[in-house]
C-alpha cells in the first residue's frame, strides 16, 4: 500500500539512522549512547505523532495494508482451541469467510470472520476477502448452530465489500446479506463484532448486526470506498483522500456517531507491529462483553441488540 509506506517513511528513515549509529559505535568502539538515546526518543515521539494524527486516508491505507493481521491471526492468539467448520450446505465453501468453534479461556464460542490472504495466491483463493453469497450463508448456518448450543458469537469484520461479480449476483448476493441481517436480529445469543480492518458496506454489515460492535483503532467502516465516493463526486478516484476526509469512516468518527461501542487500542505503528498485544486487547474486550451478557435473559439480549440499531439515524 503506497499510503502505508508514506506514513512509515520518516519513521523508517530515523530507524535506519539509529541502526547506523549503533553499527558505527560498535565497529569503531566509540560511545554514541547519548546521540542514540536522543534519536530514540525522537523516534518514539515521531511515531506517536504520526500514528496519533493519521489522516482518514492514511487510516484507510493502514486498514488495508497487506501485513495487517487477519481473522486467522486473531483466532490463533485468542483461542485455546479452535476447529474450523466449512460450507453452507447448499453450494460451496466460501474461503472469503471462515468460521468455527472453539474456546476463549474456558468459554465455548462460535467465531466467524472475513478472511483476506497473506500473499497473492492466498488472496486469490480467498477472493481478497470479498465473499460470495455462500460465505454469508455459511456464516448464518454457523450462527444458527451457535444459537442452538447457546454459544456467544464473535465476528471479525474485514472486507472491501461483498463481491460484485456475475455469479455472486446470480446466486443472490442481495438475498444472502438481507437474510443475515434479518436472522441475526433475533438470535438468542450475544453477538460481539470487531472491525479489524476494512468494514466495507453491506458486505461488512452482513456479519455486523451485533449486540456490541468494536473497532480496532485504525480500522475503517463505511458505506462505500473513498475511491468510489470520489469517482461519483468528482469523477476522479484519485481524489479518494479528500473523499475519506468527509466520509466519517474512522473509529473515532463512528464512536462519536454512536454507531460503534468501543475503540480497541492498537500498538504504536498499527496492529501488525504487535499482534499479540492487539489480540490481547481484543480478547479482553470480548471476555468483558461475554461476561456482561452471561446472566442476561434471552429476550433482553435480543432487545438490547434491537434497540441499538433501532436508534441509529433519526434520533441522532
Amino acid at each position, binding site marked *: 500500500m503506497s499510503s502505508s509506506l508514506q506514513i512509515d517513511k520518516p519513521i523508517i528513515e530515523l530507524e535506519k539512522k539509529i541502526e547506523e549509529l549503533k553499527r558505527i559505535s560498535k565497529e569503531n568502539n566509540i560511545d554514541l549512547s547519548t546521540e542514540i538515546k536522543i534519536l530514540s526518543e525522537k523516534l518514539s515521539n515521531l511515531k506517536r505523532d504520526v500514528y496519533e494524527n493519521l489522516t482518514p486516508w492514511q487510516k484507510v491505507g493502514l486498514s488495508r495494508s497487506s501485513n495487517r493481521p487477519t481473522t486467522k491471526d486473531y483466532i490463533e492468539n485468542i483461542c485455546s482451541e479452535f476447529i474450523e467448520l466449512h460450507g453452507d450446505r447448499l453450494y460451496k465453501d466460501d474461503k472469503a469467510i471462515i468460521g468455527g468453534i472453539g474456546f476463549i479461556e474456558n468459554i465455548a464460542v462460535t467465531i466467524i470472520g472475513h478472511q483476506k490472504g497473506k500473499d497473492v495466491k492466498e488472496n486469490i483463493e480467498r477472493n481478497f476477502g470479498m465473499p460470495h453469497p455462500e460465505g454469508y450463508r455459511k456464516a448464518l448456518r454457523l450462527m444458527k448452530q451457535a444459537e442452538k448450543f447457546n454459544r456467544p458469537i464473535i465476528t471479525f469484520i474485514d472486507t472491501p465489500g461483498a463481491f460484485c461479480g*456475475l455469479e455472486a449476483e446470480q446466486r443472490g448476493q442481495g438475498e444472502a*446479506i*438481507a437474510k443475515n*441481517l434479518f436472522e441475526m*436480529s433475533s438470535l438468542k445469543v450475544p453477538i460481539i463484532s470487531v472491525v479489524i480492518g476494512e468494514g466495507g458496506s*453491506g458486505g461488512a454489515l452482513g456479519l455486523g448486526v451485533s449486540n456490541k460492535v468494536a473497532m480496532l483503532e485504525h480500522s475503517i467502516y463505511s458505506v462505500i470506498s473513498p475511491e*468510489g*465516493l470520489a469517482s461519483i463526486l468528482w469523477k476522479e478516484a484519485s481524489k479518494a483522500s479528500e473523499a475519506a476526509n468527509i466520509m466519517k469512516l474512522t473509529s473515532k468518527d463512528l464512536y462519536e456517531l454512536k454507531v460503534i461501542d468501543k475503540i480497541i487500542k492498537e500498538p504504536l505503528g498499527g496492529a501488525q507491529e504487535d499482534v499479540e498485544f492487539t489480540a490481547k486487547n481484543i480478547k479482553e474486550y470480548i471476555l468483558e462483553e461475554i461476561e456482561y451478557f452471561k446472566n442476561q435473559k434471552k429476550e433482553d439480549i435480543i432487545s438490547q441488540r434491537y434497540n441499538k*440499531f433501532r436508534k441509529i439515524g*433519526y434520533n441522532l
Partner: protein
Amino acid sequence: MIKKLLNKEKEYAKVSINKNFKNKSVDDKFWIKCSSCNNDIFKKEVEENLNVCPKCNYHFKFSARERIDLLIDEGTFVELDKDLTSINILNFPEYEEKIDKYSKKTKEKEAVITGYGKLCGIDVVLCVMNPDFMMGSMGAIVGEKITKGIEYAIENQLPVMIVSASGGARMQEGIISLMQMAKISQVLKKLSDNNLLYISILTDPTTGGVTASFAMLGDLIIAEPNALIGFAGPRVIKQTIKQDLPEGFQKSEFLLEHGFIDLIVDRKDMKNKLYKILKIHGY
C-alpha cells in the same frame, strides 16, 4: 453501492417519458419513442396505460403518488410521518442543497411515502419509494419512515407492502444510511415473528442496500416486468469481470429464473393480484 446510483442517473432518465420526446417536430408534445421496442407511441396512450408501452409492455418509471392511487382505494390512504426531513448528520458538502432541489422538483420531502389505507377494502400498510427523489436512495429518514410504517402494522396487526425503487444507500449519510439496512430488516423480522404478511414489490431499479435488505425479505416477492434488480449495479459488475453482461442479466425475468422472486405481475394487474394474495392469507 451508491456509485451505480449516480452513474445510472443518465441511463435512467432515458426511459422517463419526458426525455423521450423527439425534439425536432411539432408532434413532440404528443409522441414519444419507446426505448424498448422503438415504436413511436402517442404519449397520452402511454400515460393512460400506467406508463407501460402499449406495444411491447415495457414498464416505464411510475411515480410514488400514482402508485398509491393505483393500489389503494380512493380516499382511504392516510400518510404517516410525512413531515420528516433529513438532517445533514455528516456535514456532507452540498447535501442540504440537494435535498432542497429534489423537494422542489418532486414536491415530496423524502424518497419514500408511507401510510395505511384500504386495498379492495382490506386494511394494509403501504410504503412506496420515490425514484424521482435522489434516485430513491435510502438515508436515515427513509429508514425511519419505513420502520415506523412496519411498527404501525405490528401494532395494528396489518399486512405490509413495500414498493422498492432505489439506487441503494444514500452516500451523503454515510454509515448512517448503511445502518438503515439493519434497522428495517430487524423490524421486518419482528413483523414476521408476529405472523404478519410482508409483500415486497420490486420496480425498476431496485439495487444496492435496498436489495440487500428489505427488498429481498418478502414472504412473497413480486416484481414488475423488466425491472433492474441487483446488489451491485451492472456497471460495477462489468468493471469487475471485464466482460459484457449477458442479455437480460439482473432483470425481473432473470431473477425469477434464478429463484429469487415469486412472480412477475404487470402493473395493471398488480392491485387485483395483491387482493387475491391478501385473501388467501386470511385478510
